[in-house]
């Protein structure tokens, strides 16, 4: 590993193979020149945009995203939706406002900007200026390429919602006038062609066409710049430098600038960085040869733009990045680009942290997580893995995050859990090994939090921010895990990879994903999709009854009115039932009632454990509301459990999955917990001796 100044970093990709890109259908071509004045936080830019009409219909107006107008004032839709608080950060309503003003837009010499207007297609907010509609003097014909010359000025907002500045740290995301998506008939199952250009919402921002980018960035010389592209040219003059980056086949372009960055560089080398056991597992599960799986891999340059106070995390981020490149390459398809850049925002600029852009993303690092006892909090690694993998679910499979946010966040949550848990075994852990798995945290939110919406809803139409989060991250992530457990490893992973490969460089919808999940033909999965993506279905299995009693044959009066197995004399005390049971040699009669609450039907495994250790197993198809099992055995029932393997990950309350009979005589978890808690309290109390 080397730590180099940025100028040296530019040479890194030399010697690496050109990325083996499959060509997406390119609609846009941007050539941008932008100049940043860090002192005033102002930006001036020009942009030559070549836009090709991808449809069969003539297009009479163009639509543009002006994302930074969301930070213009407190009337914008983003501000109204967020209330000025987002991503655990608060807007600076003093000097932190920002904006984008398009000063000129010309096509064939004609100035278009005078006729332009703002529209708010999502919420009709007249004060929102994040969608600019530009009428054209003549329509752009199908297949015709319109070349537009655009000039704009902008003020960088103080960061609280993804893009912005803190002191001299700048994160430029969604920063230039970006044309919306004119969807041809058939794309994303559309029945007619039309614009898809949403406002900038608090919880969504991604959907764009593919294209090539050339971006020249002018900043003071002391600044270190990282971007989505590869550095192709550097010019310096008058204390400033202009860095030109290029990137092909992406649908967004982000960059960052900060004079304090320490650039850490490394190379992902498939020959060294893909674990052999993971290759073998993927090969077996996917039914493909190892050679086939490894065929598309190539070296990838990794650049980490690290804050100087986070140097202790350099290897942590790099190793997480390499693992993500290996895992996604094996289970989805190899990363097609030649480089990936990781941006580490300062700790007081976390509004910019944990954000995905293509071939560049921001992670999150907190210095205290390098120190005992928090050094096994793998939050930085998890964010790195999560944000990189967005490059697949929002990037390479260009889903519409505005309308189907789960396709970006939910699938990504699912893959993140697998990567984090398999590599680290935990998400948060403190000595002496007490911790939580990543999947447990998501699963807890999914199954235990209040539900107000189905998974499938536009990102701005959820009941509240919590419901957006639950239904975009936790619930779909956990439900996909449930589908995996229902289909089985081979069927699921073949379907999952099939989806990824089919929709690479394309625009999938939810139904496209479901088609692959339904393909193996499991009706439970179809029902699950219907009830969770399109409804608010839930499920809770429980053991309602678990009882056992001696099966001592006939008890009561027989036909001759003779008492059998009991003493009818009311003057004699009743026998102690427990003593009697203890001496009973069998057989035993047991009853177990299993209940399923909620609308989701799925099969469940039921295990009845006898005192002698024998386990009686049943499988319930879960179709009814409850089922009763009656068992006669030589040993009494001590425990009945539904889903002992914990394969029903959507189960809302796992605590009621077991019921013990009074015959159970095992060690007590409650006693153990009480002792630990009492000791903890005594430790707390004894600390008073240090003061009083």
């Amino acid at each position, binding site marked *: 590993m080397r730590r180099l100044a940025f100028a040296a970093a530019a040479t890194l990709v030399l010697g690496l193979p050109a990325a083996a890109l499959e060509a997406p259908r390119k609609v846009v071509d941007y050539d941008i020149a932008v100049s940043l004045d860090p002192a005033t936080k102002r930006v001036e830019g020009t942009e030559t945009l070549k836009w090709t009409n991808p449809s069969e219909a003539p297009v009479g107006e163009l639509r543009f995203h002006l994302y930074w107008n969301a930070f213009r004032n407190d009337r914008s839709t983003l501000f109204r939706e967020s209330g000025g608080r987002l991503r655990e950060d608060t807007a600076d309503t003093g000097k932190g406002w920002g904006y984008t003003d398009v000063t000129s837009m010309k096509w064939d010499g004609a100035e278009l900007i005078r006729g332009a207007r703002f529209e708010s297609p999502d919420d009709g907010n007249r004060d929102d200026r994040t969608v600019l509609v530009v009428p054209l003097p003549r329509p752009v014909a199908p297949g015709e390429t319109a070349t537009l010359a655009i000039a704009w000025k902008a003020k960088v907002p103080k960061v609280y919602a993804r893009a912005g500045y803190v002191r001299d740290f700048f994160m430029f995301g969604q920063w230039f006038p970006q044309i919306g998506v004119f969807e041809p008939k058939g794309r994303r199952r559309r029945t007619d062609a039309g614009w898809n250009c949403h406002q900038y919402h608090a919880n969504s921002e991604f959907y764009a066409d593919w294209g090539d980018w050339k971006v020249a960035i002018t900043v003071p010389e002391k600044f270190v710049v990282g971007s989505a592209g590869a550095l192709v040219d550097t010019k310096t003059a008058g204390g400033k430098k202009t860095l030109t980056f290029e990137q092909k086949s992406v649908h967004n372009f982000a960059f960052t600038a900060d004079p304090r960055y320490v650039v850490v560089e490394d190379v992902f080398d498939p020959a060294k960085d893909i674990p052999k056991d993971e290759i073998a597992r993927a090969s077996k599960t996917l039914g493909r040869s190892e050679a086939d799986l490894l065929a598309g891999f190539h070296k990838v340059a990794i650049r980490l733009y690290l804050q100087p106070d986070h140097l202790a995390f350099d290897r942590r981020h790099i190793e997480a990045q390499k693992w993500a490149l290996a895992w996604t390459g094996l289970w989805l398809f190899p990363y097609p680009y030649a480089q990936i850049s990781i941006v580490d925002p300062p700790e007081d600029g976390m509004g910019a942290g944990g954000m995905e852009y293509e071939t560049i993303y921001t992670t999150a690092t907190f210095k205290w997580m390098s120190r005992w006892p928090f050094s096994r909090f793998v939050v930085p690694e998890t964010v790195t893995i999560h944000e990189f993998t967005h490059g697949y679910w929002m990037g390479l499979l260009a889903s519409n995050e505005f309308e189907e946010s789960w396709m970006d966040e939910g699938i990504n949550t699912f893959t993140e859990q697998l990567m984090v848990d398999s590599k680290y075994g935990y998400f948060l852990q403190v000595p002496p090994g007490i911790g939580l798995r990543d999947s447990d945290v998501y699963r807890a939110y999914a199954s235990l939090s209040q539900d107000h919406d189905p998974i499938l809803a536009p990102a701005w139409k959820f009941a509240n921010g919590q419901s957006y989060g639950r239904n975009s991250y936790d619930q779909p992530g956990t439900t996909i895990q449930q589908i995996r457990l229902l289909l089985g490893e081979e069927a699921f992973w073949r379907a999952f990879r099939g989806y990824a490969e089919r929709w690479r460089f394309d625009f999938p919808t939810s139904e496209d994903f479901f088609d692959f999940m339904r393909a193996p033909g499991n009706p439970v999965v179809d029902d699950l999709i219907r009830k969770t993506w399109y409804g608010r279905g839930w499920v809770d299995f429980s053991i309602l009854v678990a009882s056992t009693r001696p099966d001592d044959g006939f008890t009561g009066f027989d036909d001759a009115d003779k008492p059998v197995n009991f003493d009818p004399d009311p003057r004699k005390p009743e026998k102690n039932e427990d003593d009697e049971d203890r001496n009973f040699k069998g057989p035993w009669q047991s009853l177990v009632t299993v209940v399923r609450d909620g609308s989701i039907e799925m099969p469940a495994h039921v295990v009845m454990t006898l005192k002698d250790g024998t386990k009686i197993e049943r499988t319930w198809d879960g179709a009814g509301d409850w089922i009763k099992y009656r068992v006669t055995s030589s040993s009494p029932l001590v425990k009945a459990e539904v889903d002992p393997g914990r394969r029903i990950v959507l189960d809302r309350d*796992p*605590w009621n999955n077991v019921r013990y009979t009074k015959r159970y005589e095992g060690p007590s978890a409650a006693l153990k917990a009480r002792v630990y808690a009492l000791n903890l309290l005594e430790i707390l109390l004894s600390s008073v001796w240090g003061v009083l």
Partner: protein
Amino acid sequence: MSALGAGLRASLRHRRLAAVLWLSLFFSALVFGHTFRKLFAPLDEGAFRESLVKGWDGWGVLTFTVKHWDAIGVAIAAAGGAVLLFALLQVFLTGGVLRALVAGRARPVFRLVVAESAGLFKANLWATLRFALTATLWMALLVAAPVRVLGKLGKDAPPHTFLPELAFWWAIAAGSIVLLNVGLRYDLARVALARGEAVNARGAYRVSKRRLRGSRPSAILLAVVWLAVGLAVQALFTSWGLRWSPRTNGSTSGLFVFRQVGFFVLAMARVGFWASLLAWENARRPAPSLYGV
């Protein structure tokens, strides 16, 4: 004999005094710890009973926490009550412990400690209030105010650079120094009350000021040494306890007894500290005047 040596010797000799302190700890915890019984009862009825007996089950603990959040809130409030009760007990008992140490009586102790504590309680309570007041005042002046100034000076500084780091370490260092100094004045005031050199907190604080004059570093060193001994004892027993990992009810009970032994040793260290301070203070008392005071 050095003050430290006197403390070590006393901590071994006055085991009954240590038992009094340990009992105050144990019963404070037990009185409020009864809420744990209700809180944890569902553990034996649910799906995670066996996995929790075997060790840690993150999913089980997470779901239990969410399900029983209200009961956990009650337990946390009870823990707060226990801290308050224990603090009051220490204010009460310290006078009696000091009197027993001054008297050098190893037994019988319990009745003596309670009786003497009762006699000194009012003065000790005033001394405690004065300690709280002075600690707050000095903390505000020497810790909070400088940290606030440093925060303002460094409001535009990146995290973990000179000014933010200085503010953090200043808070730790200055806070510790203030607590040690104010704490020593308070401790020596209680010694003065126990020795009968003052009849009220005001007079006791005056005596403690005289004792500390010119000898403050050695007193601080003594307090730091005993603090380190206490921390070491706590760390040792906690670490061993965590490795215990009981899987049977018998083993769980064993862990409980083991941890009580640890807290008893900690109470011995507390007695050692007081005996050391008495020895240190004794060495700095003015020689009695032939003409009387």
